[in-house]
């Protein structure tokens, strides 16, 4: 198989993973203007919950295929618990403050969740490798790929499609867009902005946890994974433009392809390549590729 095809396939798989881990971050910023530093911890929480739920499912002798449902269920559970607790219990008290205050608050949540995760799950690495190998693998030329990677690509496309449809084609999506454009005017028009914020944050947390849950079968789940992911997720959404769904998708594709090219052709610059692209994009478009123009308020 040609290197070009290998780069393309590896790039697509990595881009899909990047999109899954970054989309929740951009959704929350787009609607709530909160740069959620705790996103990485919520990803880690999803990974831990998936390991626990999936591990329990397999250990109790249930059908191995059901472990995929456990991964998704873990993300939903984390989203439904952590989302409302953080949004109602903390964030709503700091709405309207400067963005830097919100960043500091979510950073505090990041640190708290890191320690809570250690308290709940311990510091020993956990793993749930079964779902990764369960679907078998397929060959493309001289390379073998796990079918799980195809599932990952399909799921990321599905998430992108569902979010795009909800945002653009449904009444709830229109309400969300109204809140994005002008929170005060939306409230004046009778939109329950608090509820929109709660739902958005919960969905954002669910997506972060989904990223962790889908990654869990491929890694050793342990303290520290949150910090690694948040840096990459930031790079992706900054390239695409904070708050832009299409930007997150494009940012993921750019980073994924550039990294795959570097790994195959120039491995010594692999680490540098991702951040070089980010720097280049920011030089040309300081607010990212898809950043929407901001209306001047009078």
């Amino acid at each position, binding site marked *: 198989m040609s290197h070009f095809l290998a780069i393309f396939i590896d*790039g697509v798989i990595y881009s899909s*993973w990047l999109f899954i881990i970054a989309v929740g971050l951009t959704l929350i910023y787009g609607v709530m203007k909160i740069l959620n530093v705790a996103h990485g911890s919520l990803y880690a929480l999803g990974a831990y919950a998936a390991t626990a739920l999936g591990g329990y499912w397999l250990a109790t002798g249930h059908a191995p295929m059901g472990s995929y449902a456990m991964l998704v269920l873990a993300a939903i559970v984390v989203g439904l618990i952590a989302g409302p607790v953080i949004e109602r219990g903390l964030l709503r008290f700091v709405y309207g403050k400067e963005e830097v205050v919100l960043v500091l608050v979510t950073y505090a949540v990041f640190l708290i969740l890191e320690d809570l995760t250690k308290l709940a799950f311990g510091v020993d690495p956990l793993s749930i490798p079964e779902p990764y190998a369960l679907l078998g693998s397929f060959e493309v030329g001289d*390379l*073998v790929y796990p079918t799980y990677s195809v599932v990952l690509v399909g799921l990321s496309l599905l998430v992108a499609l569902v979010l795009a449809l909800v945002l653009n084609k449904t009444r709830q999506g229109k309400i969300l867009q109204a809140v994005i454009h002008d929170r005060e005017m939306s409230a004046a028009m009778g939109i329950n902005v608090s509820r929109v914020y709660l739902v958005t944050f919960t969905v954002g947390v669910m997506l972060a946890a989904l990223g962790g849950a889908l990654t869990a079968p491929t890694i050793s789940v*342990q303290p520290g994974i949150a910090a690694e*992911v948040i840096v990459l997720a930031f790079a992706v959404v900054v390239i695409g433009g904070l708050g832009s769904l299409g930007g997150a998708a494009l940012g993921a594709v750019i980073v994924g392809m550039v990294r795959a090219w570097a790994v195959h052709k120039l*491995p010594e610059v692999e680490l540098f390549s991702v951040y070089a692209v980010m720097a280049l994009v920011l030089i040309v478009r300081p607010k990212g590729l898809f950043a929407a123009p901001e209306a001047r308020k009078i």
Partner: protein
Amino acid sequence: MSKFFSRTKVAIALMLGGVGLFSGSAHAQNPQPVRVGFVTFLSGPAAGPFGVPARLAAEAVVESLNAGKVPAPYTTKGFGGAPIELVVIDEAGGTTKQVSEYRNLVSRQNVDYIIGYISSGDCLAIAPVAEEVKKITILVDCGTPRVFEEASYKYVFRTRPHATMDAVAAALYLTEQFPDIKTYGGINQNYAWGQDSWSDFELAMKTLKPSATVTTSQMPKFGAGQYGAEISALMQSNSDVIHSSLWGGDLEAFMMQAVPRGLFKKSKLVLVAGEPYLHRLGSNMPDGTIVGARGTNGVFAPEGKLKTWLKEIYRTKADHDPNYPAYVTAMAFLGLKTAYEKAKAKVPVSDDALIAALEHSTFESPSGRVVMGLGKGHQAVMGTAYGSTKLVNGQVTVVNIKQYPAERVTPPEGVSSADWIKGGMKPKQ
């Protein structure tokens, strides 16, 4: 009222004085405990395979030493009869935090000696601080040869060999066992440890097998987690051998992703730090993987009373046999005990006496005899071994083990590792 307070003060003073006198007489009968600070990873990626086994070993060894249940020549209780008190702290958090924690151990916890450190970065940062505060510090596990090749210390010791032997012995094993090797590639973390490990291995292979060529050198960042593209690049490189110094969660993630893709059906894998993962990876460790343990530690340890003792006491705290971090931890405590008891001929034990006793010393350990033969007597040397994994009844075993004496895999005093490898790895004449 004021009379009452003054009487109370006198009473308290008398009581405290009494307690002081009493405790003084008690101390005369029972020796003061020796407080040892033990620093290892209790959280983060290095905790599972390295830090936690080291902590379990430290606790088990100290309990056994205090109970006087260690085989000869270590039958005296504690350190020369004095009980050992352990103060354990987490190594996670980076070098700046570790320097602060080190100073806390010295000035607030008042420890007598410090044993620990797994990360090479932490060892390089701590050694000058130990020298500054004049606290005897024994480095347990870090690999970088730079600690004693680039500096000279009075208060710092390392009771295990440095990492040059990992790459040299791996290259020796490969070229002896598989003389037809034509190509080799690598996947190592993009920081000092991974880069040095690959560079030493590449140099050693060029010396031992100049006809073999490098196919690819993958350097993912530490904690990358996703290795899909690297695995594709390694598969397409058609390397006979893949060298890796990956460790922790990175190694486990790499194996979880590479094994289902059949990477190791095409290439033989060399894991220079592979021994601690034998029980963790289990059947995910492909048959024929070449593993080392930087010294004759863990599965490579020679049979004997000390090895049996360590396995027994470790098994009281874990459901598996001790791995190499546990062995090197035991080594550090036994080295310090040997020196302490030798220095105790002059009571009280002074730092100078203990340093003199530990420099150039020789002591027995569960991994065999340790000689403090490098770094002006501050750096241990010992032989090492490599072997190949084989799954037997669901258990990973190591077969085809080859031993290498210290002089064959370690540069002599005064020669840097890189120069020694480039110069053909000749033993000292």
